[in-house]
């Protein structure tokens, strides 16, 4: 099927019933067409605003738009990527100063100033990000506070930038012969940029790279186990946030035609963070709402404060402002947009239509050694958790790794998947040594895993969670994602994810949030995600834990059918009935060493295994 006919199929199905029986669950809410109409109406309303409202309101709207851009960067960085930055104002400032310097000192066109601002800010973000994005949690935020302050002090101290007086007489932007000097022309420029940025960001978040960004908050181990280079995604997100800040700074410089150090210090850096948090740092539109709330609030405080408290010094406005912000954070940590979204109709989503399958890897021939563990040892300080364990797994087998609690099974798993490094010995997968490879390289080599303590993205849909697994098989990059250039690939991936959901028995509600599923379903969802990577070896950590009897039977059936397709499975499990009935071979560990290996019947009758599980014969 060609890509054009695919999109026709998709359009035909969009809004319709879809292929699965239970699609009616998602049929409540607006149709995509009605939603699109709503968005167009809102944009039209905004476009008409300058004709209706007073010029002061247009000025206010202009600043809301400028702030929205910087806040949008923070929403992506903080809300999506989980990195809290106090340094956004510094990036805005760098861009504003860059364009101000170029257009006043060298009389360059503001458009050249834009390019210069974007390049300078982007490069700075690249360097700062490469240096600091390995920091974790609050260390990262403190780092942003540190370099943010450093940069903002530079604005006031570097000679060529006008010190504390700043740079004035910045030329206005002109579009061909039209000079965008007044408030109204700038209104259209600013809000076009905002609308375009929102659109591109929304596209990006729905794409392959966007999904990878949304994984970051789940921790590095999850991202890397999916073959995602978490650091690179962080860096990309950081640079994107800085570029949005740069757009904001460029617009601000040519809007107010003047730059000075004050708007880019620590205070404004926190204000942008406030905007992102108040709007709802997980939602893109939250950036606009947050910017509007802060701008209006500031305005209101400025207007009303002297009336309510005549004679009070202006600095008290900051107190009022900070107090309101603290109250807000105490009452509503998720922000306004998520709180309001509950009252809005949801957009109906249609089940992905069938599409050509994604390319598959060549599976090894049945019976040849796929995984070879050779004398592997791992110490934690004085404790030897895994001590010289060796075993092989052959292609097309289901092998179980069992043992009493503390036997070292989970450590063994982490060594195989690269989450831990071996101290001694080798792990060979498909003929190549993988013991020194990073986790994501092992994942890309064809080992997909599930987790004993589930690592799903609770706020993403089942479909998106499964799509995460397909990350290494897809190619769409950042630009392709933002411009939706790879619709064909995406459609095929979605169809594949849908097939996998149906295969594991979750096909009736692809748009449910993963966090709403019961534990048993979450376990099979993880298996579907692992399968989406098209692995050669599936590594399952206690897949039957917490499953009911029928669910266990269904899981065993699923694993048998996968074996029939030549997939190899290695699993750790405590449920002996499940293991004995399913596995071809069993490896038994106790106190870090292998004590037995063989077919289920042989293991059941092995004296050492009985002793390990039941204690010595008295």
């Amino acid at each position, binding site marked *: 099927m060609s890509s054009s006919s695919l999109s026709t199929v998709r359009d035909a199905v969009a809004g319709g019933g879809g292929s699965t029986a239970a699609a009616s669950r998602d049929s409540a809410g607006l149709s995509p067409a009605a939603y699109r109409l709503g968005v167009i109406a809102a944009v039209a309303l905004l476009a008409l605003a300058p004709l209706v409202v007073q010029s002061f309101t247009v000025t206010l709207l202009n600043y809301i738009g400028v702030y929205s851009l910087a806040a949008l960067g923070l929403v992506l960085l903080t809300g999506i990527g*989980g990195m*809290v930055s*106090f340094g956004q104002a510094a990036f805005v400032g760098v861009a504003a100063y860059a364009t101000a310097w170029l257009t006043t000192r060298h009389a360059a066109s503001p458009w050249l100033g834009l390019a210069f601002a974007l390049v300078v800010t982007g490069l700075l973000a690249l360097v700062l990000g490469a*240096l*600091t994005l*390995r*920091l*974790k*949690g*609050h*260390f990262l*935020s*403190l*780092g942003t*506070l*540190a*370099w943010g*302050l*450093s940069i903002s*002090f*530079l604005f*006031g*101290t570097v000679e060529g930038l006008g010190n504390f007086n700043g740079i004035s007489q910045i030329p206005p932007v002109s579009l061909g012969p039209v000079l965008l000097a007044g408030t109204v022309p700038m209104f259209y420029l600013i809000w076009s940029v905002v609308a375009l940025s929102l659109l591109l960001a929304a596209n990006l978040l729905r794409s392959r790279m966007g999904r990878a960004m949304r994984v970051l*908050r*789940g*921790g*590095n*181990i999850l991202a890397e186990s999916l073959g995602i280079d978490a650091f690179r995604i962080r860096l990309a997100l950081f640079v994107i946030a800085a570029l949005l800040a740069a757009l904001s700074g460029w617009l601000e410089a040519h809007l107010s035609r003047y730059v000075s150090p004050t708007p880019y210090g*620590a*205070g404004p850096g*926190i204000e942008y*963070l*406030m905007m992102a*948090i108040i709007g709802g740092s997980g939602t893109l539109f939250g950036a606009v709402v947050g910017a509007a709330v802060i701008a209006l609030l500031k305005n209101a405080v400025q207007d009303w404060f002297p009336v309510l408290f005549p004679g*009070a*010094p202006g*600095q*008290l*406005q*900051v*107190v009022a*402002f*900070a*107090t309101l*912000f*603290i109250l807000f*954070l*105490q009452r509503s*940590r998720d922000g306004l947009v998520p709180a309001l979204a509950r009252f809005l109709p949801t957009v109906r989503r249609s089940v992905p239509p069938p599409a050509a399958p994604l390319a598959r890897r060549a599976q090894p021939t049945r019976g040849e050694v796929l995984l070879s563990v050779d004398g592997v040892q791992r110490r934690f300080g004085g404790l030897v958790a895994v001590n010289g364990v060796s075993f092989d797994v052959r292609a097309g087998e289901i092998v179980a790794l069992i043992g009493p609690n503390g036997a070292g099974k989970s450590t063994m798993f982490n060594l195989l998947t690269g989450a831990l490094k071996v101290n001694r010995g080798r792990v060979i997968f498909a003929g190549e040594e993988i013991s020194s490879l990073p986790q994501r390289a092992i994942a890309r080599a064809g080992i997909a895993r599930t987790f004993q303590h589930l690592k799903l993205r*609770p*706020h993403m849909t089942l479909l998106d969670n499964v799509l995460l697994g397909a990350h290494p098989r897809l190619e769409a990059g950042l630009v392709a994602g933002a411009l939706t250039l790879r619709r064909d690939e995406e459609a095929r991936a979605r169809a594949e994810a849908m097939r996998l959901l149906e295969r594991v028995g979750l096909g009736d509600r692809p748009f449910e949030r993963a966090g709403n599923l019961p534990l048993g379903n979450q376990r099979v969802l993880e298996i579907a995600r692992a399968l989406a990577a098209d692995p050669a070896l599936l590594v399952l950590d206690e897949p039957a834990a917490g499953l009911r009897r029928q669910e266990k039977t269904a899981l065993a059936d699923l694993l048998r059918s996968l074996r029939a397709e030549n997939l190899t499975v290695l699993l750790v499990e405590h449920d002996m009935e499940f293991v004995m009935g399913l596995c071809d071979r069993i490896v038994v560990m106790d106190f870090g060493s292998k004590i037995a290996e063989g077919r289920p019947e042989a293991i059941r009758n092995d004296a050492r295994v009985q002793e390990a599980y039941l204690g010595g014969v008295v």
Partner: protein
Amino acid sequence: MDLDIATLLMVDGITTGAVYVLLAIGMVLIFTVTRVIFVPFGDIAVYAALTLSALEAKHAPGTAALVAAVAAVATLMEVTSLLRHGKARAVPRALAFYLALPLAVSGTVWAASGTDWPMPVRIALAIVAVLPLAPLLDRIVFRPVADASVLLLMIIAVALHFALAGIGLLCFGAEGVRTQPLTEAALTFGDVLVSGQTALIVVAAASFSLLLFLFFNHTLTGKALHATAVNRLGARLVAIRPERAGTIAYLIGSLLAAISGVLIAPVTTIFYDSGFLLGLFAFVGAIIGGLTNYPGTALGALLVGLLGSYASFFSSSFKEVIVFAALVPVLLWRSIATTHSEEEIEE
């Protein structure tokens, strides 16, 4: 730069470093017990300095009114929360601690402000005046969100700093102050002249660090605080109340902040908004210590003092830039050196 200047800068750096040590240790104490990165810590120090200056000028310090106002809000919140949970019997106790005690403090300071007291009394008054602030603010601002992430608590702390700086302007005015020197004595070590003030700062920093060490290792309260810092749930299981431990941490922290404010006010001009940078410099020191380790923190704070001193010699306008830029490699090193639990940012 010859050796004389280098020595001079070193003495200067150790002096400011010693002040940062007191502040940084207080920050670490509050962070470990309550998980709050208490950014407004420098503001508390500044409040103490400004209060001392007001007392010298025989003005009623704004701190007195501020403490009374904050106490009223805290009492209102505590009593409402007690009544709502049906604990009416605990109300008199709450009134005593949240209202009567702070009011007694601010009343005393207010009543004493017109008189020309000897310097030690003035200093004691200034320190006592700011002590109730941080524990009360903890009740109002942080306790309703005690279970929030470190990051959210930090964002709130930053907002609180802006509120406090604004209030500082209202209470004390925009003028910078410099209080009377604590001592006119001067000491010489070989060729190096060290002012008595400098010696006093260093001695005070060293002795209060030692006191804190003894407190943690040899008193039951100190051990309870330590236990809360290590594991809140575990502490609760052995009948330590984290809220109470938090209050004690804020009190001790405020004491350290107030002392450092009083020590630094005679050597540096203090403005209502000096707290931010003061706090941040101390904070850099605390981060060098990993926010958990007291000797490391003290060493880090000294290092920041020295760095700032030498940086301002080379280029005074780039002092802040240099100190904050130096934080980035430190953070990198800390981030690599500390092993984090993996799931720290799960929603």
